[in-house]
């Protein structure tokens, strides 16, 4: 047992954990903005899939990773606009709209990937992001290599959690957004446009989901594959329930999930426990369901979640 522990819990393990958590943090915070405005965005899985593809392709052809990131975010925003059109302007079922958006976006990502790259014998790849050690800080023992010897996008993810908490709880925009998600009538009668707030929230959500997808195909891996997301979007939605719709707790949930994911990767590689590797792949999903079951009874979703707002209706 000690042997396993020693093999698993090394500095590299924790650095990997942070990397694994990064796309989950982007996705979760993105989804959080959508849900705090009252819209459950089940389009997240497809949005991440399509953004991973457009980001990768842009980087592949332009040679610029940052242009790829921009393209992925733009893709996410477009997907968010589709969600907004369906659920906000037309007031359609958020469940079905989200599933539709996911099916459509993943279909598009397969279609365009095949259209652009055909069926090559080897998977096209790019030179992914390099780590950017932060001078000084990265030299701190243990903590340095774990936190400060990472991709630039990892630092962005670290910043985005406090930033989103600040925006949500300390700014007029954030208060308006939370009010729209709790009681749109209250927001509307205070002069806030519910439609505009939800559009903005879904666009921000889309941009962050785009970042999440791009991180996977351009930093964590260096290629786009059809399995690049494999359920991480759905996990983000679970993490929000687990984190009780709070940015800090949801990010903590992302770290917990990443811990289990990193652990299973290590165990897969360690060959100490001799079971098929798929058992380990299954683990994070099982833990996520258990985690949700533990907290769901007391979780309080925003009051207006899933409810369309139509002002001219009697």
């Amino acid at each position, binding site marked *: 047992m000690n042997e396993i522990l020693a093999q698993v819990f090394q500095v590299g393990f924790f650095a990997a954990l942070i990397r694994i958590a990064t796309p989950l943090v982007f996705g979760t915070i993105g989804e959080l903005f959508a849900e705090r405005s009252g819209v459950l965005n089940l389009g997240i899985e497809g949005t991440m899939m399509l953004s991973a593809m457009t980001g990768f392709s842009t980087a592949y052809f332009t040679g610029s990773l940052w242009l790829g990131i921009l393209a992925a975010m733009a893709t996410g925003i477009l997907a968010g606009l589709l969600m907004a059109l369906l659920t906000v302007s037309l007031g359609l079922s958020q469940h079905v709209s989200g599933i539709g958006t996911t099916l459509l976006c993943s279909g598009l990502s397969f279609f365009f990937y095949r259209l652009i790259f055909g069926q090559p014998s080897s998977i096209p790849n790019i030179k992914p992001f390099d780590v950017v050690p932060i001078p000084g800080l990265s030299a701190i023992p243990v903590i340095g290599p774990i936190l400060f010897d990472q991709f630039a996008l990892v630092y962005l993810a670290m910043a985005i959690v406090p930033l989103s908490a600040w925006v949500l709880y*300390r*700014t*007029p925009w954030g*208060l*308006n957004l*939370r*009010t729209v998600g*709790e*009681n749109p*009538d*209250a*927001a*509307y*009668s*205070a*002069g*806030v*446009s519910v439609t505009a707030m939800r559009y903005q929230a879904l666009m921000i959500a889309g941009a962050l989901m785009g970042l999440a997808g791009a991180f996977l195909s351009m930093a964590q891996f260096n290629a786009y594959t059809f399995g690049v997301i494999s359920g991480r979007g759905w996990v983000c939605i679970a993490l929000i329930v687990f984190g009780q719709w709070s940015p800090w707790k949801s990010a903590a949930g992302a770290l917990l999930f990443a811990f289990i994911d990193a652990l299973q990767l290590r165990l897969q590689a360690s060959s100490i426990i001799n079971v098929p590797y798929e058992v380990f792949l299954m683990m994070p999903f099982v833990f996520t369901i258990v985690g949700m079951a533990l907290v769901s009874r007391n979780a*309080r979703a925003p*009051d207006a979640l899933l409810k369309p707002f139509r*002002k*001219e209706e*009697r």
Partner: protein
Amino acid sequence: MQPPVPLLEMRGICKYFGSVKANENVDLTLFPGDILGLLGENGAGKTTLMNVLFGVYSPDGGRILIEGRPVRIRSSADALRHGVGMVHQHFHLVPCHTVIENLMVGRPGRSGRLDRRGTLDGMAEVERRFGLALAPDALVSELTIGEQQRLEIIKALVRGARVLILDEPTSTLTPQETEGLFSALRSMAAAHMGVIFISHKLNEVRAITNKLMILRRGKVSATLDNDQSISRRRLAELMCGREITPPAKPPATRGEVLLEMRDIHTGGTSRGRLKGVSLQAHAGEILGIAGVSGNGQLELAEVISGMLAPTTGVFRVSGREVTRPSPRRVQQLGVGRIPEDRMGTGLITTLPLASSMVLPRIHEKRFSRGGFLRQGAIRDFVKEQMQRFDIRAPGPEVRTGTLSGGNLQKALLARELAWDPLVLLAAQPTRGLDVAAARFVHEQFLELRRRGRAIIVISEDLEELFALSDRIAVMFEGCINGVVPIEEATVQKIGMLMAGVKEAA
């Protein structure tokens, strides 16, 4: 001297919903210092008109002038900018936010952050001028209904409203709280603001307003000064187009106890959780339940309907103890139930009327056999009830939600009365109904009473309770604070009990 410029003018306002003319050519004028009573039956178009003024609805015709200048009000943001504030009947507040958070919504911040200091200054100003104050960091969910309404008014005043619209503001207040509201309104009028007071309660309107405007079927039927010489009857006629006489109530013949509760408690932490409710409803009587909303009426109704199991206490229906209450069980024991929320709890708006009307009885032999529906029998039953209760709808297959409020309530009544209940529980049975429909409902209650059934009416409308009840039980903070026989009941007495004062005697 120039004639004073009206604070607000609405000219020729029209608003249609499909073929329904909710407002047609409505004119309204409000001078500084006016408190205008906007009267009318339910569905007369009062709220629609005010929603047009507040920018919730865009009118199909007409224009609005503020201090003589034409303005466009296309959203509530426009309305607020032009100094129009509105307190809706259902409060537009976020319960899980604090008082000051609710006040800061929709307001610009200071250098990107929430402007707490500026809002506190605004609150202090409102307190100084109108005597309205609240603790800024209290959670809204912990405020009483009266305090929540105060918050709504402060919200409008902090935003600089000069015209304040109040939609049925007194329906959830105790008579004493209502007096407090009135004194605040008077100080606003004294400060040259204009107030529009929507109500269908004639007494209150006459007590507080200086002008009256009466709407009937979307049109102005009269505009007059509130002059004590106009009789109450005349006003009622202007509202309804005819004289209204309450149904005659023969003397009660009280029989055995049909429903009994002894020391009922319920769980949870809400203000209205029951803390030892005991009451009895007798055959041949109408028991009225009064109280400020949120004092346990909802919970009481839920217990009687079988939706909420008491934690302790005894609950009996016609002598049989209900040990494991459930909606099915209480129905089997002969309790008919008219819920407060007709659309949300009673009927299923998206399904055909026929489905809504057989919902609780679908397993009866009459409607199904061996798990299969008897659709012919269902249709016949619904058609029969539609005829008996004069439910106006194209047919049993019509979508429930397209019926008017009065017809929905008739459908619910028909559904429950078809099984000849021993006890009928009705919560807010005439809320939102027009006079004719309300009268029909009341007649049905009196008919049940004549046939020796027990009727429990939970209502926030004291006039209704006084007209119907044989005894009035008043709830306060989850207890029955007193039961008053109708012969001894006065508004003052009931009001004191509603406010939590025990009877002096």
